């Protein structure tokens, strides 16, 4: 079955989702979800190893050979991300059971698991497909599942957040399809690699640039790049904790991958980066995101919202590397996709523990947490420090590469911006750390529910990962290097 792994990594979560909807038995469904999660991890690792040993894998869906049929194309870059996303979402699934029992109504739990797996299948589909329109279909599958996940929280404002995201997400998808339509008219092909070959013979002219603009803006809405981020904070704040952790660590990352794929593999480095305005826009929006969103985060009182704004800022770091567009900058981006995914999973899982035990929503309720729940408090502290980029944590590695990249390009402004935005991050994280460790517990804040073992265990594993990958960069840094060298910059180097 190993040669069919490209289809299986997408289909296993979707089959799981379908079975869960048919069976609708809460505990049994957790088992099904875990089973399809772990088998997805198994096949994603097989995919990565195959991609490493034999190079790019091409899988003709339905037996129709590309470029006519839908091609699934697995290289060292996307198989790495598939493995990351499969692993992170499996760990979150392990954590999910107890948390969902508290946060959701009983009759919604099956639907949640089903939507979770459907979203996972859609995200892996976006990563693995080599077809422009198929990517759109998977974008919609994952987005529709996301809207449901967001609307499921107990807070009724979740419905409004889901509706907001529904409107914005639909606009984004529409822009993307318009861009794909333009490319299809220009090249007559929907296969991304066929398109990139055909674009090589075509002179640069307006419709081509228009398609680039449509696709970039469409995907940027899904990424929540700074001026288009309005849907994200509410969506993260009012979704169930498990949903927030899942979305924060996977959904935006996959959209960023899609953008990178278009810029580097479809349009090609030369076409995109010969355009100075494009670089200027990407760089300045990323820097505004790093500053603006961190500034807003400083003034938030809702804990989840604070970290949601911090997500917007961190996405700025990733797109910054895309804008810097040299070897180290791209490694910075790629590593930060992985690292930020781990950090945000750790933070939102820890917040999920707090919601579980004593319904903590606001920052001032954190006072004296270090005494009451030392384990969770340490997790939050360590993973927030990673956000700042303290040496010895994953955040440092990403920033290191980004600074290296911008120094090589002579972008001193960017280096300065990176430093200042780290200070801004220090301010909002500092507030939390001060409350946790240096304030006395407020009365009436007794822990109500004992946090189950698996929730703590997953949170701790994620937190340890933020330190481990900050010290031993063999797995993250080196794999990112290989991905960038072999896939993205293959022709430039």
């Amino acid at each position, binding site marked *: 079955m190993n040669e069919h792994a490209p*289809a299986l990594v997408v*289909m296993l979560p979707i*089959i799981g989702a379908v079975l869960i909807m*048919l069976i609708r038995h809460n505990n049994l469904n957790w088992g099904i979800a875990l089973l399809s999660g772990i088998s997805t991890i198994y096949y994603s690792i097989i995919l990565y190893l195959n991609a490493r040993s034999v190079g790019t894998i091409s899988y*003709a869906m*339905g*037996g129709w050979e590309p470029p006519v049929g839908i091609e699934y194309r697995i290289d060292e870059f996307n198989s790495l991300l598939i493995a990351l996303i499969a692993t992170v979402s499996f760990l979150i699934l392990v954590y999910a059971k107890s948390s969902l029992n508290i946060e959701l109504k009983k009759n919604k739990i099956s639907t949640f698991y*089903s939507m979770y797996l459907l979203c996972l299948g859609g995200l892996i589909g976006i990563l693995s497909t080599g077809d422009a329109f198929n990517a759109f279909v998977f974008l919609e599958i994952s987005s529709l599942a996301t809207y449901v996940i967001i609307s499921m929280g107990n807070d009724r404002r979740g419905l409004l957040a889901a509706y907001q995201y529904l409107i914005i997400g639909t606009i984004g998808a529409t822009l993307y399809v318009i861009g794909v339509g333009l490319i299809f008219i220009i090249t007559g092909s929907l296969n991304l690699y066929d398109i990139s070959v055909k674009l090589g013979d075509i002179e640069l002219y307006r419709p081509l640039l228009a398609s680039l603009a449509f696709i970039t803006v469409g995907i940027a809405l899904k990424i929540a790049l700074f001026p288009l981020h309005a849907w994200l904070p509410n969506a993260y704040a009012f979704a169930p904790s498990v949903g927030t952790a899942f979305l924060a660590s996977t959904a935006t990352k996959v959209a960023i991958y899609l953008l990178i794929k278009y810029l580097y593999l479809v349009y090609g480095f030369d076409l995109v980066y010969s355009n100075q305005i494009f670089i200027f826009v990407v760089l300045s929006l990323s820097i505004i995101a790093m500053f603006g969103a961190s500034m807003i985060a400083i003034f938030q009182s809702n804990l989840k919202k604070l970290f949601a704004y911090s997500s917007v800022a961190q996405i700025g770091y990733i797109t910054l590397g895309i804008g810097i567009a040299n070897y180290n900058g791209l490694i910075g981006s790629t590593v930060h996709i992985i690292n930020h995914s781990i950090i945000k999973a750790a933070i939102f899982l820890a917040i999920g523990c707090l919601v579980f035990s004593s319904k903590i929503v606001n920052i001032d309720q954190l006072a004296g947490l270090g005494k009451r729940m030392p384990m969770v408090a340490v997790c939050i502290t360590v993973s927030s420090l990673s956000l700042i980029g303290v040496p010895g944590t994953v955040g440092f590695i990403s920033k290191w590469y980004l600074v290296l990249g911008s120094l090589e390009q002579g972008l001193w402004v960017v280096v300065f911006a990176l430093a200042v935005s780290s200070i801004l991050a220090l301010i909002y994280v500092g507030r939390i750390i001060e409350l946790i460790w240096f304030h006395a517990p407020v009365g009436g804040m007794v822990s109500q529910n004992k946090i189950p073992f698996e929730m703590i265990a997953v949170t701790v594993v994620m937190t340890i990962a933020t330190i481990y990958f900050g010290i031993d960069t063999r797995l993250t840094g080196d794999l990112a290097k290989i991905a960038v060298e072999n896939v993205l910059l293959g022709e430039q180097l």
Partner: protein
Amino acid sequence: MRLDLLLRISSKIFLPFIILFAFYVQFHGDFGPGGGFQAGVIFAAGIILYTIIFGIKKAQKDFPETIFNYMVPLGVLIFTVTGLISLSKGFNFLDYDALAHYPKHGQHIGIIAIELGVFVTVIGSMVSIFYAFVARGKK
């Protein structure tokens, strides 16, 4: 309910034809215009007509909501199982050639099978959405 005699009788006459037309579009879909989605919508339109004429209570008694809720994932399951059968015979996912000895027959069977999946899911989701809106506040 007394005054709409004309509507009730005429919709009763129409219904079998609507359903029959849905099946025509469904099975004609592989060599003519049509297919699972269109057929599903036409079928669902029949049930929606029934609901409008006879009221939500009677409709939900005759066509229980749970059936449609289960039809939504069931159609996707039919679709994926078709793909998995190709996999189990050593072909690529959704390669219909695997479904019969002669590839052309395989393609024929495959397209019917996945259109059936689409048909089931579309009926399920259309009627579920309709019921969800109509039954609002009545539970």
